[in-house]
């Protein structure tokens, strides 16, 4: 230190041992003092800056460590979740009760690097022992030493993987792969659809998921009930075998929400073994069969469903005020128009009232009713019931209905009893659900609606007309063409339709399409059903008849008796005075009702 001490030593009386108190070194005035002052101020600045910086760091520390929330915590949590399993590439599909309809499973595939395998013959033998279905020779030939990557087997089961892993052969390894699995097999094949080899949906909801479902992490819950689906599937299979039919289809819909509870189209297929291009190429016959199996009659098919259309025709006439329950129409003679003759299958040859026309399924009466209403009104009502547009179904493809572009009188007449217009069964059931549920048309949906919510609907007919239609449909099951559809306790109502299929421009007499559309319980409809059988042949039990009343009506009765307990519809006493009162048509009271 340069500091020189200036001692106050000039006091002569100072004792020797007394030293003046120490004091700061005194820097002599001059350039050195200035330099030291400058250093001090710089030191102060540096100290200040460092204090501020450490303060910031300390605050940040406190923020990160002590205070909850904030970006740091979020990013830490995010990092933790990075280890969570990647969501499957496709969401699960479950039914309304949570039963798995489709799921994605990790299934390992076994591959080998033959160059690393020491003893290929022994390895082939060992692998063949743990992988049933593969022969030793096959595996040995696959382990070609010239290659460094060969698939041994794709999609092993967990047990197979365990066995192969236990062999401990070097050069074998597993590649995790995803595989779509449908535990119920063919049960809901047409609703769920299937996935191609590339794991992309090729039909049904699987295809809909690809296009329309954004959130792929949560399962897609369908409105379907697997138990009801099974009953319908089971009974329709029985109908096909009983009547050696070509196919059958059925749908059950909740009339208050438009939810589809069951949807079956036979023949169907197993989505676990979807059709590959190779299979298609194998034979034309097989291709045709696969084509038929993949065809969803309910949504993609369009049919002239015959007399079932009288539901819409009668609802139109009653709702527009053209007809009343007591009005009568001349059904004594066939109508000749152009080259057509409109006749009655169960002819009465007299004037019939509206309930009688409906009950006896009179084509003549229905045609006259429609002509009285007029083409414009008919078209308007059919459009209201959603029969002139493709059904607005989510998650699946639908067909476009076919109807004449110009609506002549003859079209008006034939459309009255369901000819000259072809609609999909889905459209028909949606319309009928609106007719019976009090007059509100709901969108058909395959997605489960939150229980208790009333989805928006459009009023298409008045509540009064709906009530009248319920009575009429009940009448058909009590006394008309569908007595075999009755299910004691469940107050079934409905309408049969037996149409000849149009083949090459004319109607083929022996090729029928028998349909029954109904609802239950008729005093307060909850579910609507459509059952359809394609080209049934009469048998001994039905005295050779293959009409809807003999084929699908009994099946519907069995279905309702089996599904009503599942769906929680309580049986009622059908003969209780209140019920009889609620469902009796006043104008028919006291009259003797002839059997048809």
């Amino acid at each position, binding site marked *: 230190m340069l500091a020189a001490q200036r001692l106050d030593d000039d006091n002569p009386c100072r004792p020797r041992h007394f030293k003046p108190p120490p004091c700061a070194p005194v820097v002599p005035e001059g350039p050195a003092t200035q330099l030291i002052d400058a250093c001090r101020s710089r030191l102060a600045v540096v100290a200040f800056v460092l204090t501020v910086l450490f303060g910031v760091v300390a605050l940040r520390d406190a923020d990160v460590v002590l205070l909850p929330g904030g970006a740091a915590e979020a990013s830490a949590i995010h990092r*933790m979740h990075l*280890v*969570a*399993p990647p969501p499957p590439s496709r969401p699960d599909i479950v039914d309304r009760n949570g*039963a*798995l309809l489709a*799921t*994605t*499973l*990790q299934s390992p595939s076994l591959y080998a690097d033959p160059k690393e395998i020491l003893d290929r013959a022994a390895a082939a033998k060992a692998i063949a022992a743990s992988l049933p279905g593969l022969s030793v020779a096959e595996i040995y030939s696959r382990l070609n030493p010239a290659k460094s990557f060969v698939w041994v087997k794709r999609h092993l089961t*967990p047990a197979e993987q365990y066995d192969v892993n236990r062999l401990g052969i070097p050069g074998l390894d597993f590649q995790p792969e995803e595989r779509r*699995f449908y*535990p*119920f*097999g063919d*049960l809901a094949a047409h609703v769920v659809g299937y996935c191609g080899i590339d794991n992309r949906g090729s039909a049904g909801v699987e295809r809909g998921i690809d296009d329309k479902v954004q959130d792929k992490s949560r399962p897609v819950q369908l409105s379907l009930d*697997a*138990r009801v689906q*099974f*009953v319908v599937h*089971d009974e329709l299979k029985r109908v096909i075998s009983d009547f050696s039919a070509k196919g059958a289809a059925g749908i059950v819909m909740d009339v208050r929400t438009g939810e589809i509870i069951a949807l079956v189209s036979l023949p169907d297929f197993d989505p676990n073994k979807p059709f590959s291009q190779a299979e298609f190429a194998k034979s034309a016959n097989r291709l045709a069969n696969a084509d038929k199996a993949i065809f969803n009659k309910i949504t993609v098919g369009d049919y002239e469903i015959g007399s079932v259309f009288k539901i819409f025709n009668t609802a139109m006439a009653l709702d527009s005020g053209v007809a009343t329950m007591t009005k009568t129409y001349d059904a004594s003679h066939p109508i000749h128009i152009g080259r057509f003759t409109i006749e009655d299958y169960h002819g009465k040859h007299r004037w019939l009232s509206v309930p009688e026309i409906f009950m006896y399924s009179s084509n003549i009466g229905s045609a006259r009713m429609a002509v009285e209403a007029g083409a414009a009104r008919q078209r308007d009502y059919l459009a209201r019931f959603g029969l002139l547009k493709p059904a607005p179904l989510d998650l699946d493809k639908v067909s476009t209905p076919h109807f004449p572009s110009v609506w002549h009188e003859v079209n008006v007449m034939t459309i009255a009893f369901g000819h000259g217009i072809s609609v999909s069964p889905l459209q028909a059931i949606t319309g009928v659900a609106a007719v019976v549920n009090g007059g509100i048309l709901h969108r058909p949906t395959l997605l489960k609606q939150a229980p208790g919510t009333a989805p928006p609907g459009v009023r298409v007919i008045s509540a009064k007309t709906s009530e009248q239609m319920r009575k009429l449909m009940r009448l058909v099951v009590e006394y008309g063409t569908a007595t075999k559809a009755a*299910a*004691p*306790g*469940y107050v079934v109502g409905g309408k049969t339709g037996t149409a000849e299929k149009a083949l090459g421009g004319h109607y083929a007499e022996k090729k029928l399409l028998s349909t029954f559309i109904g609802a239950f319980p008729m005093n307060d409809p909850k579910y609507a059903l459509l059952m359809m059988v394609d080209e049934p042949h009469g048998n001994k039990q039905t005295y050779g008849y293959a009409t809807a009343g003999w084929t699908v009506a009994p099946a519907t009765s069995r279905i309702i*008796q*089996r599904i*009503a*307990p599942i769906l929680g519809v*309580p*049986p*009622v*006493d059908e003969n209780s005075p209140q019920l009889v009162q609620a469902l009796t048509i006043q104008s028919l009271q006291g009259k003797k009702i002839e059997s048809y």
Partner: protein
Amino acid sequence: MIRLGTIFWAAVVGVLGFATFAVTYSVQGLEDDLLRVRKQTVVEQQEMRTLEAEWTYLTQPGRLEELNQRFLSLASISPQQLSRTIADIPMRPIEPPPPAVAAVDTTVPAAVAREVKRPAETAATRPAAERPPETETVAVKPAVARAPAKAAAPRSLDELFAQVAGER
């Protein structure tokens, strides 16, 4: 002085350094554990998916029906069996009370004796709506034990439940 301070701060630095390392290592250890658990969770989750699929496969309605036919032969419920709702089922008729006995207590049934012993405040503190009136009388006036406490015939299930709840 200076030496003491130096020693103190060196000790502080040493302790802090040790603490920092200890915390770091323990956090690393915990993170390793977490990772392992998470990986295990993923494996378990995949296993659960597989098992769930297998369970669904094994409980297909068709298979269940087949098993039922083979082992149980249960039939589906017929509408006749379901023709009454639970509200329609009448209550068991209540037997008329035995004639009142003048002599106290010898004929009092055990159930009634239990009723009597129950502390009165339990019933009294309960909201009145939940208390069936007949048990109340017994509880509040334990002296009146000559005739058995006769429960009025419940008119509905709710009443029955209320009574049962009151007796407990």
